[in-house]
């Protein structure tokens, strides 16, 4: 089975994220990048399926030059090869353009499964897997906390819902997104880290992928940030120390605010 796992390099959760005043997009230079946490589960799931079906895993990432760190991490976990969609013209792409570029690169590569994490921790839109499924015209199996892909062309997942889960079936090719806790992502071993250095990473530009420059990047975005500002600080609240009546005091406050 041919599996492509899509990963994104994002700012570390603990770093302070800022918008660039000119482009009004995330200032990626001022923060440390890491592999999007939820993508670690996607890589692990891809590796598990590949191991059980004698498949191969290609890791794909779109992003600036430093995204190679995240691609190398997936390779050191065990992925076989990498694809890096790298072009200055992609900077500032919205979800519409991002899904377009990823889909264009995936077309014709014959992937049976395309696996994503269920959201990125920076943009948090959670729409790219659905958009890529739409563009590729393949089944959408998203928000999975269980995946069965035995390699016979069938794939079945448990899709998390508000009430529990749906059991969903489809034929490959399919787009999958996985949620946190579906598995326990492995740590790269020393051997894995050394081996990753020799694994092939293909760099693809807009021209290579046949993507028109006018369809991606900040200028092509179908939505725009008109303005932004730091959130107003919350007015300082009342903090009291419990002297045996803390619960009553909160109840008083809730009564004042008409919650009870």
């Amino acid at each position, binding site marked *: 089975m041919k599996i492509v796992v899509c990963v994104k390099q994002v700012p570390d959760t603990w770093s302070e*994220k800022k918008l660039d005043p000119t482009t009004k997009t995330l200032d990626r230079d001022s923060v440390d990048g890491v592999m999007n946490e939820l993508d670690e589960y996607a890589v692990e799931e891809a590796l598990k399926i590949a191991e059980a079906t004698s498949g191969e895993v290609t890791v794909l990432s779109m992003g600036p030059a430093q995204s190679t760190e995240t691609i190398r991490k997936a390779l050191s976990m065990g992925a076989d090869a990498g694809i890096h969609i790298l072009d200055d013209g992609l900077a500032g792409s919205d979800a519409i353009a991002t*899904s377009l570029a990823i889909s264009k690169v995936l077309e014709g590569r014959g992937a049976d499964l395309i696996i994503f994490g269920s959201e990125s921790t920076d943009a948090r839109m959670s729409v790219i897997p659905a958009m890529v499924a739409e563009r590729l015209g393949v089944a959408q199996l998203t928000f999975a906390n269980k995946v069965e892909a035995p390699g016979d062309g069938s794939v079945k997942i448990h899709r998390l819902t508000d009430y529990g889960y749906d059991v969903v079936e489809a034929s490959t090719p399919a787009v999958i997104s996985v949620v946190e806790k579906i598995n326990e992502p492995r740590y790269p071993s020393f051997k894995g880290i050394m081996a990753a250095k020799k694994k092939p990473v293909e760099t693809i530009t807009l021209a290579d992928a046949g993507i028109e420059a006018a369809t991606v990047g900040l200028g092509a975005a179908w939505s725009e940030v008109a303005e932004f500002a730091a959130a107003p600080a919350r007015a300082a609240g009342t903090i009291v120390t419990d002297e045996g009546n803390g619960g009553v005091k909160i109840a008083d406050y809730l009564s004042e605010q008409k919650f009870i």
Partner: protein
Amino acid sequence: MAEILVLVDHVDGSVKKTALELLTLARSLGEPSAVFVGGGIDSAAATLAEYGAVNIYVADDAALTGHVVAPKAELLAQLVAEKSPAAVLITSSAEGKEIAGRLAVKAGSGVITDAVAVSADLVATQSIFGGSTIVQSKVTTGTPVITVRPNSTAPEAAPAAGARSDVSVALSPVATAAKIVDRVEEAKGARPELSEAAVVVSGGRGVGGPEGFEVIEKLADSLGAAVGASRAATDAGWYPHQYQVGQTGKTVSPQLYIANGISGAIQHRAGMQTSKTIIVVNKDPEAPIFELADYGVVGDLFEVVPQLTDEIGKRKA
């Protein structure tokens, strides 16, 4: 007035509060038309009309609800093409955002997710980076597709005609590629859905173990609230993972959020910072969560919380 399409959240015709919120918001943008997918319109129609639906488009076809996301996006794309609405509003749930994403690609429209407000000129307000930054965004191409977070608008009745018409859609083979073969409901009792609840009571590391969550649940039940948990608590296995509030869990924006024994790491704040009123109980006066508190008590949650639960019971009696 321009038509605004609202995708209705419901369970077998029982209309969810989020749908009433969207109808209320839609009235400030134009003329709301409810899009009702699935069975149960006879029990839903009166409520939709009461909250301002001028038209109700009904698509009751098992193929629409028996497959993942794509059929609903196709239906909405067809309605966008036929009705040329000024905007499409969808609840910002996991599925709602996916429907919006596919609809945007199909309709050639820009999409904005997780709006907490939408102005009359269709500028959406979003709270990003864990609530540290507020942005105003606008769709510049196509029919704006906007998903709106639960609890962003207070539902208000404003009766309208609620004229019903049936809509049929010829689904493409792609739309039915992912078939739902079983729905499994997990017992969650009578508590409201976490991401939509008006009140959320949550517990963190300070709860100390699974048995400690009984105290949290009792307080939640006294307020008709949903229960949430911090990542520390779910990672430790004290409470099920689906109740995790935070960056990799659910984002909540209730009227009232009560954080018990939660320190307030950025991971957690990212999921609850836009709550309207925040109450904090924590024994560590230095806990960063106190920075968000409208009212905070420095103390042992096992003393403060049961006292609060009793007091609420007395005052409601």
